[in-house]
């Protein structure tokens, strides 16, 4: 039901309407003659407050406000993949056709292409009983992803009419069902869903399957599970975006939702460029076939920035319900929190820490809790993994967004400025970072990679910790005074840092490393360590071992040994043995 009310006051993106009882909280509204999209965020008996998702320049008191009767929602259907949307699911390519290179206000375009015909296969027949979430049809959305049409969660009933398989448009009714009360519902090729409500699932599953990323420091040292949550905090220039790009490119999720929330425009065009050139190794198709981009750059309206995160999540959950593993990259959640702060300031709410609203922690937890591996309503398994970048003010991890995010995520990949300065990428600090998924994931690693993998990881971690302790001493008195045994720890730790933790995103082999190779790399390092320790115990000075150049070989093994030739590690280990044997003679 459309109602008409008029603007009373305007302050930046916040618009108020006086003396009205027609709107409900979180309802989506259109503001002004150019129909700018807005949302109701506050109601009292005198004033109704609207946040407008576009620039409010030129709005006047007395301009109309149109209600829509529904909360802020997105259209879900085929055509989402290989597309780029703004924060409220308006396709940017269509906006470009309509208004050119600069985004004009009130652009009204349909989220998805309504005119395109999809080759739909109908999977139900008359008399079938359908419940919410069940699949009634499917079509090929892109070359690698099959789009499955699901009954909206709240509906159920018996099929009384089903069209034959064939070509249909988004708004065509393909199946009609009748529920218990005799009401008929037409099922089309699309449905709407409010972005701030989580889509339901049958039940949640434990986090026992890792999301494999091919990044050594993540897979081995700080693994994340499918359906897990991770935060990547780091000051500017520490490589948050780079890490997110690497994860988006290489992680083994079926679908990637990349949300550029308040970030740089050039970065978004880089993602567009790179992903369309990049070929997905599993399917041989361009990366964009399994990617959705949500771009709300930092100069686009701030209110839409707040919505962009939810829009991305809703799209991710929609694909999860079809039975896919979805990973959502949110870059950056700090911009989203700042958008909350900005709106909160306009509403003159009482601020909590650093001007952020008091409800910041609850909003963050609501966001991260929408992640998870689940049994879907249609009986398959799907997951949403959330990886959120955090941009702490002044690179200070004690600020509210980082601290609150830490409470609600289970992986914390802390990016470190000094590592980034030394161009050690990914600059994930191995002392500050953690993953709570170890115990959940260990059975999987044991089963798929053998007992050794976990043993190696623990030994590597121990060496790094020992190095960190020794470095305290070295900083004070230099490394020369250390006994050979401790010097060996330092050399080995260096081999771990340079040879293993540091990974070159621009090298064709090193950009993605399979788990098997990760394990063998650790094995080679630990093998040299054990042998050398033995030799040092026999009172042979470490300088002799260092001169053999074995540590340098370890540092370069990531380049020297191709990913598909794990047998070359045997040669490396034999070489180590021969070289060291010559020393003891």
């Amino acid at each position, binding site marked *: 039901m459309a109602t008409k009310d008029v603007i*009373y*006051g305007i*302050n930046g993106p916040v618009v108020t309407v006086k003396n009205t009882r027609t709107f409900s909280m979180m309802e989506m509204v259109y503001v002004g003659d150019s129909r700018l999209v807005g949302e109701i965020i506050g109601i009292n008996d005198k004033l109704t407050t609207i946040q407008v998702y576009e620039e*409010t*320049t*030129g709005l*006047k*008191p*007395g301009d109309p406000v149109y209600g829509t009767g529904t909360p802020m929602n997105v259209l879900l259907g085929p055509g989402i993949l290989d597309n*780029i949307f703004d924060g409220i699911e308006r396709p*940017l*390519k269509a*906006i*470009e056709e309509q*208004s*050119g*290179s*600069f*985004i*004009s*206000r009130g652009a009204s375009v349909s989220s998805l292409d309504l005119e395109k015909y999809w080759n739909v296969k109908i999977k139900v027949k008359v008399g079938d009983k359908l419940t919410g979430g069940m699949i009634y049809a499917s079509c090929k959305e892109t070359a690698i992803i099959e789009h499955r049409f699901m009954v909206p969660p709240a509906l159920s009933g018996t099929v009384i009419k089903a069209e034959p398989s064939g070509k249909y448009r988004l708004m065509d009714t393909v199946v009609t069902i009748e529920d218990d009360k005799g009401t008929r519902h037409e099922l089309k090729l699309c449905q709407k869903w409010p972005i701030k409500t989580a889509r339901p699932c049958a039940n949640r599953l434990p986090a026992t399957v890792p999301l494999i990323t091919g990044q050594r420091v993540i897979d081995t040292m700080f693994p994340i599970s499918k359906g897990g949550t991770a935060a990547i905090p780091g000051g*500017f*220039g520490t490589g948050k975006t780079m890490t997110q790009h690497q994860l988006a490119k290489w992680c083994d999720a079926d679908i990637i939702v990349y949300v550029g929330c*308040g970030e*740089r*425009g*050039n970065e*978004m*065009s*880089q993602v567009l*460029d790179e992903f369309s050139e990049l070929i997905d190794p599993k399917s041989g198709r361009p990366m964009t076939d399994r990617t959705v981009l949500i771009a709300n*750059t*930092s*100069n686009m309206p*701030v209110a839409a920035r707040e919505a962009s995160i939810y829009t991305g999540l809703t799209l991710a959950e929609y694909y999860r319900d079809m039975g896919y593993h979805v990973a959502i990259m949110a870059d950056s959640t700090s*911009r989203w929190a*700042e958008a909350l*702060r*900005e709106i909160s*300031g306009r509403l*003159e709410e009482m601020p909590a820490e*650093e*001007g952020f609203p008091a409800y910041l922690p609850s909003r963050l937890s609501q966001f991260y809790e929408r992640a998870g591996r689940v049994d879907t309503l249609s009986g398959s398994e799907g997951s949403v993994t959330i990886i959120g970048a955090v941009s702490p*003010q*002044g690179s200070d991890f004690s600020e509210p967004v980082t601290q609150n995010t830490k409470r609600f995520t289970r992986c914390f990949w802390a990016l470190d*400025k*000094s590592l980034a*300065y*030394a*161009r050690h990428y990914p600059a994930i600090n191995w002392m500050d970072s953690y993953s709570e998924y170890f115990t959940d994931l260990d059975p999987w690693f044991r089963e798929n990679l053998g007992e050794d993998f976990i043993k190696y990881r623990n030994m590597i971690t121990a060496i790094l910790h020992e190095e960190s302790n020794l470095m305290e001493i*070295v*900083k*004070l*008195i*230099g490394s*020369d005074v250390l006994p050979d045994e401790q010097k060996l720890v330092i050399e080995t730790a260096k081999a771990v840092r*340079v040879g293993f933790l540091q990974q070159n995103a621009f090298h064709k082999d090193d950009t993605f490393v399979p788990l098997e190779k990760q394990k063998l790399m650790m094995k080679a390092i630990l093998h040299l360590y054990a042998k050398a320790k033995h030799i040092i115990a026999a009172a042979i000075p470490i300088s002799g071992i260092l001169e053999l*150049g074995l540590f*340098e070989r370890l540092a*370069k093994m990531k380049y020297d040994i191709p990913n598909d030739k794990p047998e070359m590690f045997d040669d490396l280990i034999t070489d180590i043995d021969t070289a060291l044997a010559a020393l003891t003679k």
Partner: protein
Amino acid sequence: MILDYVGVKEINGSLIVLDDVDNVSNEEMVDIRLEDGTVRHGRIVQIEGKRVVVQVFEGTKSISLDNTRTRLKAHPMELALAPEIMGRVFNGVGTPIDGLGDVYPVKKADVNGTPMNPVSRVYPRNYINTGISTIDTLMTLIRGQKLPIFSGSGMKHNELAVQLVRQAKISDGEDNQFGIVFAAMGVKNDVADYFRRSFDESGVLSRVVMFLNLANDPIIERTLTPRCALTAAEYLAFECNMHVLVIMTDMTSYAEALREFSSSKGEIPGRKGFPGYLYSDLASLYERAGMIKGSKGSVTQIPILTMPNDDITHPVPDLTGYITEGQIVLDRQLEGQGLYPPVSVLPSLSRLMKDGIGEGYTRADHQPLANQLFAAYARVQDARSLASVIGEEELSPIDKKYMEFGKLFEQYFVNQSYSENRSIEQSLDLGWKLLSTLPRTELDRVDDELLDKYYITDTEQLKFNTIENTSQEQDKDV
């Protein structure tokens, strides 16, 4: 129908409040006529029913509750644009102050601009050769990039900016289409004059559009200065197909003006009293750099900001760093050693460089060389901090080598004269020469193939002459 509103309801800082105003739109411009006939300009910033808040650009001095007549202009703040703005000087809100009369507009544009559609952006790939070794090699400037200079009071950022303007060369030789937009916000008269003189001396003045808001000009104008400048830049770039370099100095003054304005509006302050929307506000400026499909031009920004107390975590440099594509950080210690330009290599960065260098742009060895230089110089810092504790004598031989490398690197690579214009080959070769003073086994960021090609084993060639000009010596080596 044009209506005049007599008197004001309330005056607070640079804001006035009018009551009983009809038919007003958000961000609309107003003229305020005082009793003595002078006219001030203002902009609607808040509307509540019939009560509107107006921001007065020239300040509210001598305005009383009933000595003004206010007229609504029925359009937002616009800038008159024409190709003839080249070579002209404007004040902070785009009014000509060079005595050459008004610009006859080909077009009028809203100074707030509209956001560029990310789909329409062209990803910047062409590098700009600045002739400065540190910048070209380690933080390459790319056409369409926004690369700020983080400086401190009293450091040589102005000289560096002028040198950049003078030497900036685009690789494919479209120099004739090069333009400069200079926006001064709250800078001292002398500084503005220095820029004007330097542009004149290097013969680029006819290609410069200047927007001057000096330190004693009204702060409300200051909040509009960069917007005017960028509107002019966008016009020149995307409609006149020029490559425009925008220099904005000093962004800290701009942010402080914004803070002053915000607090007079009674807004809730965020960190250090700056308004909560500082990030969005700065982004609305910086994001106007770039290139778009269907236009040959580009907008490249070099904002300059002085870090209060040299603190890089201050909100202004901090938020800037999160928006811009890298930063050039100047270091007071290097400046103290008499090195110019005092570019602090390690915290400086160019995010776009990886796609604009290497084979086909600069040289294939560029990226690995840059990585190795960063890694080696980072190691120098470790050696130095160790030396400060145990003394240089006690360092291990390899740390001593690094100390030596650090000294040479600063003296020959970082340091160059104000007028020296090094080619990219010169800078890269110099980098290899410096790395060759370290043992080959230390160079773990480059592969053997490059080392075979560039690593210099002949110690004769590795001598650095302290008197001779490095670039001449470099010529001999090549």
